[in-house]
């Protein structure tokens, strides 16, 4: 049975098993959308360069209806990131939140099941924001996540609260005994004047194929500050679609860095909806790909309100048979006068078989704006290479140094020191700088 047929069957099981859930209606609605759209094929403009539809001919399994912990703390220890000891840890296994494996250290931080939030004190916040990404991602894969809302969390950072510890989110897919379709889902509510750092990462256990379809939606209120880091360095048989949808509802600041180093198929959606005046957002990305790796970064910056500032810089290095895709959209709505929006995508191709497809896109409906985008695809700068070699540095090392230099301005955007050093080390290993 293909995954699609199985999904249809499984959906009815889920709905009847949780018939009293506060999420029934939204699941039903999303499932209808999914049935209409299906898994996006390359004919879908936003999926032109990333082929995932054929993966669904395989027989992935969705998680069982009852929570069953299949992994032990020891199993996931290898996924831990530096700074772990001093961080809140939210662990998802096969898409379901695992309180027993998670650690909440910070006073103020609340993490509760999404269905509880949807029926309790956060009812309105959930109603307004859960599934908000569907307005931007009109495809079956986004609908699929909402159709199977299960084991999802609501994370709350209350008014004026500066979290002492960062929040590390581990999306673990246990593919040791079966091919898994995991759909971790979260809704993050960062209230006025709150301050939080979130680090999200992905790890697959086992050797069978897995497909992770993760969605995080976030609301950021007035004067809040958010740092968000997405670290991807998973195995090559793991496929990942990772969506982060951030809506700024008050003058606030969001800083994101996406690092992609794995060799599997990765599609990232990062949406920044600037729904209030004077919002500021930064979107940085670095992707180093080799082997048959495929990395697709789709970003949307939607300037709904005036006087917002956004800056985006994505850099990529493609080796082997790797493919890089970048699609960056900037929308400036009619009311969003005085928008300042910048976007840049730079790529280096190292091998004969690597390729890059990039599409920086502007759609502007206001006249008093400053917007620019640029992109480059090329090889390492010959002049720089010669300069280094003329100082006695071997060509191989010179190349590594130049590539590292290329990556530095994104690396520097990781403000968490332990994390930055860790990523830097991974990159140095990849570039074999550590062997100098």
């Amino acid at each position: 049975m293909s995954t699609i047929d199985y999904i249809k069957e499984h959906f009815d099981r889920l709905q009847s098993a949780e018939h009293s859930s506060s999420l029934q209606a939204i699941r039903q609605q999303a499932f209808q959308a999914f049935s209409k759209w299906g898994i996006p094929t390359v004919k879908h403009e936003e999926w032109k360069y990333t082929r995932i539809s054929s993966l669904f001919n395989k027989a992935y399994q969705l998680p069982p209806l009852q929570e069953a912990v299949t992994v032990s703390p020891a199993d996931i220890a290898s996924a831990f990131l530096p700074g772990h000891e001093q961080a809140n840890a939210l662990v998802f296994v096969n898409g379901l939140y695992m309180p027993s494996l998670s650690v909440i250290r910070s006073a103020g931080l609340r993490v509760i099941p999404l269905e509880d939030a949807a029926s309790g004190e956060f009812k309105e916040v959930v109603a307004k924001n859960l599934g908000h990404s569907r307005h931007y991602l009109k495809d079956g894969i986004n609908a699929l996540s909402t159709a199977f809302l299960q084991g999802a969390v609501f994370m709350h950072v209350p008014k004026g609260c500066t979290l002492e510890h960062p929040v590390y989110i581990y999306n673990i897919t246990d593919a040791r005994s079966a091919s898994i379709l995991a759909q971790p889902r979260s809704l993050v509510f960062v209230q006025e004047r709150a301050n939080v750092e979130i680090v999200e990462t992905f790890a697959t256990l086992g050797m069978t194929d897995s497909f992770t379809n993760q969605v995080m939606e976030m609301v950021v209120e007035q004067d809040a500050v958010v740092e968000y880091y997405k670290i991807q360095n998973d195995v090559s048989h793991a496929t990942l679609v990772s969506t982060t949808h951030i809506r700024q509802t008050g003058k606030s600041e969001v800083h994101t860095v996406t690092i992609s180093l794995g060799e599997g198929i990765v599609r990232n959606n990062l949406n920044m909806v600037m729904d209030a005046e004077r919002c500021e957002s930064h979107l940085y990305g670095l992707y180093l790909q080799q082997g048959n790796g495929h990395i697709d970064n789709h970003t949307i910056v939607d300037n709904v309100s005036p006087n917002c500032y956004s800056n985006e810089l994505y850099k990529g290095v493609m080796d082997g048979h790797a493919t890089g895709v970048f699609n960056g959209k900037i929308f400036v709505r009619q009311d969003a006068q005085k928008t300042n929006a910048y976007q840049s995508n730079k790529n280096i191709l190292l091998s004969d078989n690597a390729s890059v497809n990039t599409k920086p896109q502007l759609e502007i409906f206001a006249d008093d704006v400053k917007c620019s985008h640029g992109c480059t695809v090329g090889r390492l700068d010959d002049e720089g290479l010669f300069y280094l070699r003329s100082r006695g540095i071997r060509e191989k090392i010179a190349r590594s140094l130049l590539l590292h230099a290329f990556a530095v301005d994104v690396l520097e955007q990781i403000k968490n020191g332990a994390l930055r050093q860790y990523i830097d080390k991974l990159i140095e290993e990849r570039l074999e700088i550590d062997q100098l």
Partner: protein
Amino acid sequence: MLSIQNLRAEIEGKKILKGINLDIKPGEVHAIMGPNGSGKSTLASVLAGREDYDVTGGTVSFLGKNLLELSPEDRAKEGLFLAFQYPVEIPGLTTTNFIKTAVNEKRKYHGQEPLDAVAFLKLMKEKMALVNIDQSLLSRSLNEGFSGGEKKRNEIFQMAMLEPKLAILDETDSGLDIDAIRIVANGVNKLRNKENAVLVVTHYQRLLDYIVPDFVHVLYNGRIVKSGPKELALELEERGYDFIKNEFPVSEEV
């Protein structure tokens, strides 16, 4: 030390060097002068091994080795240093890290242990004082946002760190005011000794007031058409390059 014989080079089919002959011995300072387009910078580039140029004839021996067979990095490790006319900016690579890599690569080539951080810093401090370069410059990305003078000073600092046998200064004075020229020239002079040599490539005589050459060669239309003592530079300054052009009209290539 350096012996160039009948060196010919071209770029994209265009002949630039049409038979250069030049001998440089340890301890000597040579100056190559010539009008724009005469091939001065090409000569510097070919010696350093820039791959845009095709060497179509002649030989170059450097310390007994066939220079033209060596890669640019091996030429550097053998002791040839080119101070670039336009030093390259490399955002993201700190000057310190760059020089440390270069110094240790050279040490490795000569069978020496790499310098540890302490020894390297000590060496750096020492050389910094020698060429009056500021610490803050070295922690910034290589040449990025440096002024013209800072870039050239950084070149001389690298020269101090790498202790070359032969330093080629390619139009090092271009874009510098007189104070900056003096500082750079002082740096070069401090680094001179009986073992090493300097080849100054310049359009103007003024740099030669500070780095006094033993020999001056006039490069014109791809050939050295005149050689003489340092006074030749003064003569060129007074009379301009026109008299050379008149004396040696461009002849058809045979």
